[in-house]
C-alpha cells in the first residue's frame, strides 16, 4: 500500500481547490448525500437540458477523497446524457471496487486518479458517495442518500 496511490496530485489539487463548488440556483434537480461513519455531507445540484446535464455544482464538507471525487465528478459529467452518466458511474464503481476491473482508464480521464482508492477499502465509500448522490438527484429522490 502506497499512500501516493491514494493522495495523487490530482486528488490533492481538487481537494484544495474544488471545481464547481457552490450552490446552483435555481436547480432542476438536487440531492443530499451523507456518509454517517465519517460525517461526509454533500449536496449536488444539476440543471438539465433535455436528457443532458447542462450544469452541475456541489457543496458540503468531507475528507479529501470525498471532496475531490465530487469535484472530479462535476467536471466529468457536465454535458453528458443520462445514459453516458450511467456508463461512467458503472466504470467508476468498477474502478473503485474491483481489482479485475477491465476499465479503459484513458476513457475515464482525470477520474482515473481515483484508482488508488481500491487499495484502501475503508475509503471506497468516501469516493463513491457523490456518485450515489448524483444518481439520486437524476432520479429525483427526496430522501438523503447514505453509503451505509
Amino acid at each position, binding site marked *: 500500500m502506497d*499512500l501516493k496511490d491514494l493522495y495523487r496530485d490530482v486528488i490533492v489539487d481538487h481537494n484544495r481547490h474544488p471545481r464547481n463548488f457552490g450552490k446552483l440556483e435555481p436547480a432542476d434537480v438536487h440531492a443530499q448525500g451523507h456518509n454517517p*461513519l*465519517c*460525517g461526509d455531507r454533500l449536496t449536488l445540484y444539476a440543471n438539465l437540458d433535455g436528457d443532458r446535464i447542462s450544469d452541475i455544482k456541489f457543496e458540503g*464538507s468531507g475528507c*479529501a477523497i470525498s471532496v475531490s471525487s465530487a469535484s472530479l465528478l462535476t467536471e466529468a459529467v457536465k454535458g453528458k446524457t443520462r445514459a453516458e452518466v450511467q456508463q461512467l458511474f458503472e466504470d467508476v464503481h468498477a474502478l473503485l471496487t474491483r481489482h479485475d476491473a477491465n476499465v479503459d482508464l484513458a476513457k475515464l480521464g482525470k477520474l482515473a486518479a481515483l484508482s488508488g482508492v481500491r487499495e484502501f477499502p475503508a475509503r471506497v465509500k468516501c469516493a463513491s458517495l457523490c456518485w450515489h448522490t448524483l444518481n439520486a438527484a437524476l432520479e429525483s429522490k427526496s430522501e438523503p442518500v447514505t453509503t451505509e
Partner: protein
Amino acid sequence: MSALPTSRTQLDVAAIRRDFPILSQTVNGKPLVYLDNAASSQRPRAVIDAISHYYEFDHANVHRGVHALSQRATDAYEGAREVVRRFIRARDTKEIIFTRGTTESVNLVAQSLLRPTLQPGDEILISALEHHANIVPWQLVCEQTGATLKVIPIDQRGVVDFAAFERLIGPQTKLLALAHVSNALGTVVPVADFIAVAKRHGVPVLLDGAQAIPHAAVDVQALGCDFYCFSGHKMLGPTGIGVLYGRRELLERMPPWQGGGDMILSVTFEKTEFNQLPWKFEAGTPHISGAVGLAAAIRYLEGIGMDRIAAYEQELLAYATERLSTVPGLRVIGTAPEKASVISFVLDNIHPHDIGTIVDSEGVAIRTGHHCAMPVMDFFAVPATARASLAFYNTFEEIDRLVAALEHTQRVLG
C-alpha cells in the same frame, strides 16, 4: 525533538510490552504504534493463554453436569465472578452479572428496571457527553413507556454542567445515567458529586464505566452508584464479555429480561420459578471462556497495580498534550481539568479520515470518526475528530511517532 521525559512511576514498560505479542509487529513497514485503546485494548499473553488453557483442558457447560469438566468449567466461571467482585470492591458476587458488554448491561437496566415502571411524565437524565450505548437504550425505553429523556449540557471544555444538573433533577427523575469517563473527549466526570445529589433526590444512578475501568481503580461501594457497567475488551480482556454491577436490593426487585436455560429453578408449562441472583439475569450458556479471559486480564492489571497504571497514563497524557500542542493548526477537543489518557483533536483543513489513513501508513493506529458520540461532535460543530487513546503499554517515543506522523499528514495534504 525535545528530550523524552523520565517516568516517575517506574513502570517497566519495555517488559510490559513484551507481554503483549501483538505490539511487536510492523504495519506498513513501520513498527506498530497502537493508540486506539479506547476502542479496544490489546491482550497480554496471560489472557490469551488462560483462554487457550480453558479450551484445552477445562471446557464443558456450566451449572449442569456432575462430571469433572463441567465442575471445572463452573469453578472457572464462578471464580471469574469473584475476581470481578474483588476488583470493583462489590459486596457480593450476586451483584456481578456477566453480559456481552457495556451496551448489554445498559440495555438490561433499561428493560428490566425501567420498562415495567416508567410512565408518561417520568424522566431519565443523561449528559451530553454520552456514548450512543448510554443514549439509545434510554430512548427505546422512553418510546416504550412515554417517559422523557433529559440531557445535562456540557461546556466548551467538555465538562458536564453541574448547576444545570441540579436544576434538571427532581421528583420526576427515575434514573441518572452518566459516563464515568467520556470516550470521545477523555473527560473524567466527578461522578461522586452527581451521586450525592441524586441520593438526596432518591434517584438511582447508573455509571457507564467502559472508559474508566481500564484507567483507574474503581470502588463501587465508595462511589455509591447503583449500577456500574463495563466491557472486558477495553481492559485487556476478550470481546463479548462485560459486567453489570448492580446493588443487590435493586437487582432482587428487577424481573428477568431474557428467558431461557440457567436463569430458572424449575419450569412447568404453567409456571416457571426463576433462579437467584446473579443467574436470574444470565439466560442461556454464558460466555465462559470470556469470563475466564476477563479474570486473567484483571489479575494482570492487579499485578501491575491500577494506581501505578493511572499515574503512568497521566504522565503519557501530559506529554502527549504538550507535544500535540506544538503541531501547527492542531486543536484539542475536550480540555476538562481532569481527563483520562484520551486526546481528541482536529487539524485545520484536513479531515480526520485523511489523518487516520495517512498516520496508518506510518504505522500509527488512531481512531477517526464520531466515536459513537454524534451529539458530542454536533456540540463542538465538527463532523468527526481524530482520537489518540493511550494505554500503560504505550511509550513517550510512540507519542513522538504520532506527532511525526501528523506532521507528515500536513506535508502530504498541505
